[in-house]
Structures are given as C-alpha cells and as structure tokens.
C-alpha cells in the first residue's frame, strides 16, 4: 500500500487495475481477448458471402446478420430466388442496387463456387487447398475456407468460455456461499455434493451427458460444461465466505441491522470476488479446451456452428492437410494462454501477499 501518494486513490478495483496495468503480458492478453471479441462480433463483416449492407429495390438490407441467425435473412431475397449467392443476383435483379461487401469474400459453411465473385475461380478442395494468397489459411477437404471458418468460430470459442463459466460461476458461488455462510448441516450437504461431483472425471461426465441429450447444440454443450465445472469455484467461495463471515466488518454490518442476504451479497461477495475471479478466468481457458476436445472427438456442436475444435477433427481424416491443424490449434493455444495470463495477472493484482513479494 502507498497511503502517502498524493494522487487520489480509488477503490479496491481501481487499485487492482492500476497494478494489473503494470504487467505487460497480462495487458497484452487482455488486448488479445478484446480483439477476439471484436472479431467475433464483426465476423460476418470480416468474412462472408452476404453483403454487410445493401440497397435492393429501394430498400436497405443487412443480409450479413443471417450468419448470426438464419431468421434474420430478409425474406425478399428468398422470394427473388437468390439461393444464398448475392454478388451476381443483386446486379441482375436490380441494376440500381449497391452493396458493401465483407472484407474477405468466403463462406464459413460452404465452398465458394466459380465466378460467384466475378472472375474468381472455385475454392480448391482436398489436398489442393493449401494456404495461398486467396486462402491464407487454406481450405478443408470440401473446399471451405479455413480463415472464414476460424473467424466465425471465434464466436463459439468466446461464448463457450463466457457462457459456461458464467453458469459454473453462478452455481459455484451460490453453493459455496450458502455452505460457507450458513455452516452446519447446509455446509455438510453442499460440501458433500460438491465432492461427489468432483469425484466424477469431468470429460467422462460431459461425454455421458452429451450422449443423453437430444438434438445437440452449441448452447447445450456450454450448459453441460458449465454444469460440471463449478466445483473448484464452489470450494473456493466456501472458504472465502467462511473466512469473511468471521470478519469484524460483517459483524458490524449485522450490528447495523443487515439481514443474511444483504450480508452475503453486499458485504461478503464483493470482498470474496477477487480470489473467485481467478479460477473463473482459468476456467474459461479450460472450457475452451474442453469444447475443442469434445469437437475433436466428434461430440461437439453439430456442423452449422463452426468451432475451432471441429476443424481439428476434420484434420484427422487427412494428415497431409497440416494447415487444418496448425492454424486452429494456434488460435486455441493463444486464446487459452491469454485467459491464463489474465487469470495470473488478476491473481497478482488482487492478492496482497503476491503483491508485496513482487515489489
């Protein structure tokens, strides 16, 4: 602590951020994840075959949104029999039309045909599709561009991390908080339950659950990863609540008339959040890995969702297509590494003992 600093120091999180910023690697990791989020949000504008914005028969449309949800594709294009190919249909059916195209004209779900973009050849398929100027990361055995697949797979990679860890964090914090705060038989029940879930190997549990569910989808995969990955968070939360329950400021809050829910949410949780955030961050990394592993084993989300792991799965059928392994693998590696660096940075920015040691 530096109480003599002339500058006004902020709260706990402002202080933590000040310390976090001093770590270049952690900061770079944060920037990388932020960049991935931008890529995920703008994926249809970066790589796609549908205009970002176009004017057709006097109206403005944004057909690229169809990549997020098929129902967002304007009905007029289906009526006019576009069949998903925009560049020539637009010009033929409305000569006055104009369109803003994605940066990279490639589709994550199908190979681009010959002359779909005027004057461009069809995507090479099978072993032919090695990285080239028009396909920086190559194409898979069906001729689908790997870069386009990866750009659209970013959404899945990020969502898997946030949604599953959001779920795991919620379950873990609720169970841990109840056990740690209430103690007694509540603690008995929650701790034993946590230990039982812990005993089952996660991947086996996930595979079993995946086998049971009907109609697998990316959301169900996330829910399963979340529902099995909360045990560590619950144990840590319980420990923090046990420790903070005895603290003087909690006693002071009780003496001021605060009820148990308010004490848990407002007085204990914000103080326990810093140590809990660290395993959540590491959890995001492992959730991404788990999803990739599931996809690699063929238990991942079905084809419409392009995930990095399913690209690795494609590579299994033909080992000569090294680009199917290297680029998605590198993306997974960098993302997981970033989350681990962020977690480590958080830990050192918020843990008073490590903080002193580093000085």
């Amino acid at each position, binding site marked *: 602590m530096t*109480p003599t600093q002339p500058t006004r120091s902020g709260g706990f999180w402002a202080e933590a951020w000040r310390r976090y910023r001093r770590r270049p690697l952690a900061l770079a990791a944060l920037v990388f994840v932020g960049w991935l989020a931008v890529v995920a949000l703008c994926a249809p504008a970066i790589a796609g075959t549908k205009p970002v914005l176009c004017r057709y028969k006097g109206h403005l449309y944004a057909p690229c949104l169809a990549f997020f949800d098929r129902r967002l594709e304007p009905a007029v294009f289906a009526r006019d029999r576009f069949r998903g190919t925009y560049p020539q249909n637009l010009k033929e059916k409305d000569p006055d039309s104009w369109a803003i195209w994605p940066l990279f004209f490639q589709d994550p779900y199908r190979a681009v045909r010959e002359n779909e973009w005027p004057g461009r050849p069809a995507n090479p398929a099978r072993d032919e599709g090695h990285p080239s100027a028009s396909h920086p990361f190559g194409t898979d055995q069906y001729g689908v561009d790997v870069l386009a697949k990866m750009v659209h797979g970013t959404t899945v990679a990020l969502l898997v991390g946030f949604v599953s860890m959001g779920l795991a964090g919620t379950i873990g914090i609720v169970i841990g908080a109840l056990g740690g705060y209430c103690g007694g038989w509540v603690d008995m029940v929650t701790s034993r339950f946590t230990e039982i879930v812990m005993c089952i190997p996660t991947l086996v549990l996930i595979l079993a659950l995946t086998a049971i569910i009907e109609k697998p989808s990316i959301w169900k995969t996330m829910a399963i990863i979340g529902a099995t990955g909360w045990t560590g968070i619950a144990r840590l939360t319980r420990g923090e609540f046990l420790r903070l329950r005895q603290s*003087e*400021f909690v006693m*002071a809050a*009780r*003496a*001021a008339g605060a009820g148990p829910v308010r004490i848990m949410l407002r007085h204990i949780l914000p*103080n326990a959040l810093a140590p809990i955030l660290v395993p959540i961050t590491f959890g995001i990394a492992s959730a991404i890995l788990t999803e990739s592993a599931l996809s690699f084993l063929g238990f991942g989300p079905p084809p419409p969702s392009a995930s990095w792991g399913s690209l690795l799965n494609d590579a299994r059928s033909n080992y000569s297509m090294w680009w199917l392994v290297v680029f998605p693998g590198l993306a997974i590696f960098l993302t997981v590494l970033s989350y681990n660096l962020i977690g480590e940075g958080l830990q050192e920015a918020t843990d008073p003992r490590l903080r002193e040691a580093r000085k």
Partner: protein
Amino acid sequence: MIERPPHPRHAPLLAIKNLVTAFHTPAGRIPAVDGVSLSIERGRTLGIVGESGCGKSVTAMSVLRLVASPGRIEAGEILFSSGGTTLDLATLPEPAMRSVRGGRIGMIFQEPMTSLNPVFTVGDQIAEAVLLHRRVSREAARARALEMLQLVRLADPRQRLDEYPHQLSGGMRQRVMIAMALACDPELVIADEPTTALDVTIQAQILELLSELRARLGTAIVLITHDLGVVAETCDDVAVMYAGRVVEQAPAAELFARPRHPYTIGLLAARPSPGMKHSGPLRTIPGMVPLPQHFPAGCRFHPRCAYARLPGAESGSGRAVPLPAGELPCNAAVPPLHEVAPGHLVRCFHAESLGPPRSAQEIAAGGLFP
C-alpha cells in the same frame, strides 16, 4: 429472581436479568456469562469493567443477539424499553431484532481498522446504515451520512464521504464507526472497547466525542472497557464483572470512593496512582482468573479473596477466618447481588461486615492485600 428493586419512577432503558450465555464446544459447556443482571438508565453512561474473559463482550453481544455459534443465550431476560413498549431482546423474533440492531441500539467495535468494509466508501457505508432503517431516498441517506460525519467532527467531511476506509487513520475510522452507530438516532449505543486499539491522544479525543454526543443527543451508552481510567472519566455508573457475573454495580463516584466487593477493592488497589511514592512493583490480586470450565463453586472470587470465610478444614493457606455461627461459607452458596447503599449493589456475603468502606487513596496507601 429479580435481584434489583424496581426503580421508583420509570423503567430503565435496558434491564438485563439473570442472563446466561454459554458456548457449547466439544470440550463441554462454557458459561461465559452466567447470571448477569444489569440496568442502564436513559441518557446515562454505564461502564462495564472486568478482566479479559470475564464475559463483558459476550454480555454486549447477547444484548444484540450477535453471539456467534456455538454460543447461545440460555436463560434470562433482556428488557429494552423503547417508545412506550418493552421488548425482551432475548426472545424477540429475528426480523424484529434486525430493526433493533442499528435502529434502536447502535454498536461501536474495538477494531476500527477492520470494522469497515474495505470495498465501499465511507459515505456508502453510513448511507447503508440509514437505508436499512429509514424509508428515505439515496440522496437523503447520503445527506444524512454527510451530516453524521460533520457531527463526529471528521475533517473535510465532504471529501471523506467518497473515500475508502484504507485512506483513513485509525482515529478517523473510529469516528466513522461512531457516525454509523448513531446514524439512525439509537436510544442506546454499545461501545465495545472503542479506544483499546487507538493510541492515547486519539483515545482521549474519541472519549471526549462520545461524552459530547451523549450530552447532545441524549443517547445512553454502555462502555465496555478494562481501563479504569476511562471509566472514571466518562461513566455515570459502573458495573464490575468477574468470571461471568456482575460483582458490583454503583454510581462511578461511589464505586471509586467506597468499593465494597473485595475484587473491586483489589482492582482499585492495583492501579498505579499519581501519588505513589516508591517505584516498586504494582499491587496485584494473588492467583489467576479461573477458566470458565473450572469456575469455583459459591462465590467465584473466593479462592483469591483475602476475606474469604471458609470452613476450617479447607483452609490450608491460613487466610481462613473463623465462621460465625449460622453464616454460610463463601464456597457453599452464590452470594446474591444486593443493595448495600442506594444504587450500590454488591455480590458478597460479607460486604457489610468488611468494616467501614475505605477510600481508594487509603487502599492504595494502606494495602489490603499483603
């Protein structure tokens, strides 16, 4: 059994009657508070003094029902007369108890360094205390927080409102704690060793502030301390506790001038006094405070008491005084807390027969304990 005669004019603000609070540990039942009776009048300051482990803090925590498990209030009444009604805090349902905590009874803790939540600003914490008991807007609560900080005379209150506890010194934090405790105009404030963790000059400031606020707001204060000097300066009444029981309660001036219980006499004699001529060791009471698991039978002070009257067979020390016919030995029955002078209660069989009460100076000079 009500050991204290009812007050002639009005009910006391808080009357604790035969309170028993025990901790049920694997090692057995530990009665930290064992039959404490106390009363606090409106607008007055009651000091509770005693050694560590005598049960003074547990008594205070019992009043707010904040005794942590495995502690439990097992018997007794805690009658709190507020707004024309009398509540028994020992049995009040939890939701009603919550509105008493902070709303009608405020509490100040010993450790200002750790009693404030580190993640919220000072203003937020005082405002929260207000919002818990008053239906007011956030702005009004914040305005009240500012008003309270001005009341406790914190320097730069407007700026402090948005500062975090770690930016304040110990004395400033204790002022914030006092502001929080008083934010809802409670009728009673319990201060559990509010100055123990502070250095001497800050101690004096905080005590002065408490006295001043009591005079201004008319709040009754229970001051728990082991510092007799603090009691002498600030309290109207004093209760002396020993081994889970009150052994003597009297107005402060009376207690310091004419202590009646042998333990109180011993305590007062053990103080260093400005008039002390020689620089020898301070007087002490022989023996040790008994552990709650091994409280002696009868009067709990008798093994250390110079006046204890025990049956001849048990007196190996030669301190035994022959028992007059019909008198109970000190180790046979618990002496009742009885009135020996108006407002002066003593828990000793022999309070009257100990001879004329002596002044503190005499005790210090003469030495009752060889």
